[in-house]
């Protein structure tokens, strides 16, 4: 197991996991992960199917709480606060750590209401119109939708829907944005726009992105964590972190053989 102790990130870490393991009931899903996510960086989580990268991502905003029997061991800190402390309200966590899902999932409401919803439930007191425009601009969607804000968000194209979902997430001005394979259901051009957007959003947010696509990881991320899956004696698959380093290092000169095999396309 290689942690990045030998190669500390330059920026101050915003999220840190310390020996994190995730269980579903008695089933071990991810084992003993040490990660440091530096502020205003894009961190990509890559690895083959079933390696637990999405599971890890969903621990950061406590979305795994929705799954019965899901349990986290070890420690995850956000701004040095333990996210799984019993005193922590998971709802507050999710307001500060936003999420974009694999499949674009706009609400069956108007484009405007899609963005206003998050603000309303959070007791936003400013101008909603301004917030909607700002968020859509940041998500590079404003010019395409400014004349049809009353139309349903579900009437947009897939790529536009995903940018609407990004706008919806950043409307809450979170510190961190989690993205779970945000472009996997999109065409190449929409994917490119999402990737450009990620690079821009890096100025204001810390982004953790799960991706199947290694080229995408190398294009957008500053640091990359490679996860792999292994079988226990009982035949269960569990995921673990193999290597975490600067993206360049992971793709050019990985320390681990498994990483090298994966990034060179020998498996996965």
């Amino acid at each position, binding site marked *: 197991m290689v942690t990045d102790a030998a190669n500390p990130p330059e920026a101050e870490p915003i999220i840190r996991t310390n020996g994190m393991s995730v269980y579903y009931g008695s089933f071990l899903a991810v084992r003993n992960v040490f990660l440091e996510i530096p502020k205003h960086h894009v961190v990509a989580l890559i690895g083959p199917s079933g390696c637990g990268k999405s599971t890890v991502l969903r621990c950061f905003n406590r979305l795994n709480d929705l799954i019965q029997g899901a349990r986290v061991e070890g420690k995850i800190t956000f701004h040095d606060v333990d996210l799984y402390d019993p005193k922590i309200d998971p709802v507050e966590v999710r307001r500060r750590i936003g999420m974009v899902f694999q499949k674009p999932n706009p609400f069956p*409401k108007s484009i405007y209401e899609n963005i206003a919803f998050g603000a309303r439930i959070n007791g936003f007191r400013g101008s909603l119109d301004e917030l909607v425009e700002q968020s859509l601009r940041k998500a590079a969607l404003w010019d395409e939708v400014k004349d049809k804000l009353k139309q349903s968000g579900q009437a947009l194209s897939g790529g536009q829907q995903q940018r609407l979902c990004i706008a919806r997430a950043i409307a809450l001005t979170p510190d961190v944005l989690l993205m779970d394979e945000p472009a996997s259901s999109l065409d190449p051009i929409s994917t490119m726009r999402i990737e450009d957007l990620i690079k821009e959003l890096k100025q204001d947010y810390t982004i953790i992105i799960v991706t199947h696509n290694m080229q995408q990881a190398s294009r957008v991320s500053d640091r990359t964590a490679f996860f792999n899956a292994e079988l226990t004696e009982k035949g269960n698959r569990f995921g673990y972190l193999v290597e975490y380093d600067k993206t360049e290092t992971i793709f050019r000169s990985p320390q681990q053989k498994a990483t090298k095999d994966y990034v060179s396309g020998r498996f996965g």
Partner: protein
Amino acid sequence: MTRSLTAPRTLFGLGMTALSGLFVVIALVPLLAVLFYVTLQGANLLSWEVLTELVPPAGVSAGGIGNALLGTLIMVGIAALISVPIGVIAAIFLSEFGSNEPMSNWIRFATNVLSGVPSIVIGVFAYGILVVPLGTFSALAGGVALSLLMLPIVVRTAEEALKLVPDELRQASVGLGARRFQTVFGVVLPAAMPALITGVMLAIARASGESAPLLFTALFSQYWPQGLLEPTPSLAVLIYNYAIIPFAYQQNLAWTAAFILITIVLLTSIASRLTMWRR
């Protein structure tokens, strides 16, 4: 490669297709026959006066079905006011909050049993808990009886409607920091609304045609409804009363009431289909 019309399996296939087509026609015959005959018998007396005038006593050849129509609307309205909120909130519990709890299965089981209770028994029950203590037949008792009939339909259709809402929407809402009730009332319920309305309309259509629960709860009256605690006429009971007495005009009124009732049921069903299509 050519298709042989005399091959046994082709003949068998054609025969089965013809047979299933025939049975579709047979299944549709009762519906069309009822619609046709009721329209034939009921439409000839139809006029604005008949729809708005008081029900005549036996032997009088004038008047209409106005008060019975109003009574039906009042009692179905009461029933909807009771059963829709209770049914929808119960369905929210079943689908959103308690889907894994053992109690939910008991609630579903109880709902199924309730939907199997004969409507005449529901009438007797309402008689026992409302008519006897209040000492009078009433629109209230009739409405309560109908609401018991509607409740299981509302619960089941509403639960189905909520379950049709994709989980991704719930996750999106939770991911934005919505609390559970905010997710349910802000996202899930609006998304399920068209299907919910369909279910409610089906329940209303069902209740408006029932006579058994009204026979000894609302009874009947020859007058305009005076209040919720008075005997109240309804279309279904009017049909029951007047179809079997030997006066031609009254029998014709029963046909007219039947025609109006079927029209109401058809219109609500069509309206509920339309709300589904509009999605």
